[in-house]
């Protein structure tokens, strides 16, 4: 299978450049690239004329929740895979906060098999750090790593006992395993569902002080310093947390940080009159924080941008705000929403793909995320300017809980290729 992409704008996060050129994919890998006019296509190859569109490495989405096992009515691998392909996501990194959680090699094997059999994209799975995400006994980190777990996390269940966490860090370090933390101090953020401030006061909703994030991050970083663990903070969303992150990186700790697309493009006022599709965890922040996060992503202090895809059915969202489930789907909207930051002049295309493809692949040790010669031909072709109005019922996900329903967006995926095979058009 040979495909020649001609007349494309090649978005390369490695060289931090966007160039007019061509790319040849052969036997699932990138065989050649060049600038300017394309060479003569080899016999039997497909030629894609990409005029006006960008060709970039496929997105590696760190932290996708699929409802298998346990909540298939919210999302199955089949629907998630379709949504991923339609969104330009070529690798889904599966979250382990399922019912039951992915905390044993057997469950991990089930997830990997289901994912590989039913989705057209690559699957990588994470496993829980502690059994049942209960924060008491550590999972079989060694077995799980051998079975293919790329990282270990209890999701939004914050481990409260520092001694247990320190042991998990120490053990994980001996195996070189990556630990992902959710940095919200559970005490300070307890009972809250919206960022504290004037808007929370007006709406009469219990608030989460932004300082809860710094408290959670500082504690985790102290233990990272003590144990030498490889650590990633799943979502850094407030400016009060940034100095701690910067200090840790400057001190040479093996630390990275991520953010969800919702925290980068929406703020707390979007909740309006108790719109539960805007309820996420941690809650949406103030506009000043959002702007600071955009800067942090631009300078590379925040490394990874992801969708935090969290499908929730209508029933769990059609409730009073405090009772409604948190989370939003994002596989299909990650790229068009991220392009808002490109159109606003905040981030370049290579910077976006550095955060959505190159960095997550590098952090998890996956062979993906670049347009380098010999890299897998996981590619997304998109027109960054094509306008559309998002209709949530047209999403491929089984759950339609997107905060972008009815939003005007710019940027459509024209095609997605996984290992050289077209999976969406």
């Amino acid at each position, binding site marked *: 299978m040979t495909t020649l992409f001609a007349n494309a704008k090649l978005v390369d996060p490695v060289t931090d450049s966007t160039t007019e050129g061509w790319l040849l994919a052969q036997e699932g890998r990138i065989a050649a690239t060049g600038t300017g006019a394309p060479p003569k296509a080899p016999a039997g190859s497909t030629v894609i004329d990409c005029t006006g569109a960008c060709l970039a490495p496929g997105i590696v989405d760190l932290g996708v929740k699929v409802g298998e096992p346990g909540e298939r009515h919210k999302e199955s691998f089949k629907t998630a895979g379709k949504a991923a392909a339609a969104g330009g996501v070529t690798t889904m990194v599966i979250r382990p906060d399922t019912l039951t959680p992915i905390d044993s090699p057997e469950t991990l094997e089930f997830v990997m098999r289901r994912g590989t059999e039913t989705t057209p994209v690559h699957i990588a799975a994470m496993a829980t750090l502690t059994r049942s995400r209960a924060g008491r006994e550590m999972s079989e980190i060694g077995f799980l790593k051998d079975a293919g777990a790329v990282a270990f996390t209890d999701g939004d269940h914050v481990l409260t006992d520092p001694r247990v966490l320190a042991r998990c860090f120490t053990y994980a370090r001996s195996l070189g395993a990556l630990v992902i933390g959710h940095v919200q101090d559970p005490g300070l953020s307890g009972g809250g569902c919206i960022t504290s*401030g004037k808007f929370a006061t007006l709406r*009469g*909703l219990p608030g989460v002080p932004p300082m809860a994030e710094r408290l959670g991050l500082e504690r985790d970083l102290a233990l990272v310093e003590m144990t030498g663990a490889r650590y990633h903070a799943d979502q850094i969303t407030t400016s009060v947390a940034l100095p701690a992150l910067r200090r840790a990186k400057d001190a040479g700790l093996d630390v990275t940080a991520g953010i969800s697309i919702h925290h980068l493009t929406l703020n707390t006022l979007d909740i309006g*009159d108790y719109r539960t599709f805007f309820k996420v965890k941690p809650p949406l922040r103030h506009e000043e924080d959002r702007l600071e996060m955009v800067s942090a992503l631009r300078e590379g202090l925040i490394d990874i941008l992801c969708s935090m895809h969290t499908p929730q059915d209508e029933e769990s969202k*059609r409730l*009073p*705000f405090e*009772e409604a489930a948190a989370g939003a789907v994002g596989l299909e909207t990650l790229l068009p929403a991220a392009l808002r930051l490109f159109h606003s002049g905040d981030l370049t295309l290579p910077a976006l793909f550095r955060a959505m493809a190159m960095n997550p692949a590098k952090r998890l040790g996956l062979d993906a995320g670049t347009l380098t010669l010999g890299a897998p031909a996981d590619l997304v072709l998109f027109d960054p300017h094509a306008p559309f109005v998002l209709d949530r019922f047209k999403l491929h996900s089984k759950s339609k809980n997107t905060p972008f329903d009815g939003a005007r967006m710019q940027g459509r995926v024209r095609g997605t290729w996984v290992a050289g095979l077209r999976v969406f058009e």
Partner: protein
Amino acid sequence: MTYRARHLLGIEPLHPVEIATLLDLADTYVDLNRQAVKQSDALKGLTQINMFFEASTRTQASFELAGKRLGADVMNMAMQASSIKKGETLIDTALTLNAMHPDLLVVRHPHSGAVDLLAQKVNCAVLNAGDGRHEHPTQALLDALTIRRAKGRLHRLNIAICGDIAHSRVARSNILLLGKMENRVRLIGPPTLMPSEVRDLGVEVYDDMREGLTGCDVVMMLRLQKERMDGGFIPSEREYYHRYGLDPEKLAFAKDDAIVMHPGPMNRGVEIDGILADDINRSVIQEQVEMGVAVRMAAMDLLARNLAAARQEGAA
């Protein structure tokens, strides 16, 4: 008519003219309620359902009486005892009730925003009788009517709201209403019971009772909501009473003719001195209860008129 809203969900969307319209009409109902025969047929033939998902005696009785005096058929549903326990969602409950064709739905719910959610799903007029920590519009309106009648005006007054502001929907609705009518609002209470960044709502915040009360025309006490406390906001009840309980000594810092208000039910000896609460020269707490019925009659009357107009438009 200058009140066109379909529901009364909060003070936030109201215009000062709408507030004045409601209060003017309520004044006429105060007169009616003082007659021997207290009947009107403003709501004749209409059905009013009181749905209380949270225990209430006073507010529910006030709404019930208001509806009955206007000639409505009133039904009370104590929701905390029924379908919630059976796992029915709020929206299903709303749809079930909607099928019974009520005209006025009076709702109290422990979660902020729940009444808004319910109002989106029904065809009748919805009155918010208190949702979580969000709003309690009829309480703010009855407080405003009480102040207007006692002080002769509802603007350029110094009004202190004291106590547990953080957990109080009464405080939020009052801050909004009194601010809209151009009064100077002060909040007094321990900082642990202040909502975050409440100064942005255009109020002054004090943690010293005497300093805050100085020169006030109106002193509004709030109930210390013990049932809302999930721990450790104040050291003890007696320390709270010592620092924030209203007694004659602290009240002396306010203006000589300052009135004392309380939304009830009172914790005598916790937030207010019992003798002071009964002092008919200072306390207007009984008047507040009286105004409550009149204000609720006015609100339901106006909403019923708007509902009739909307239905006529729909039919035409």
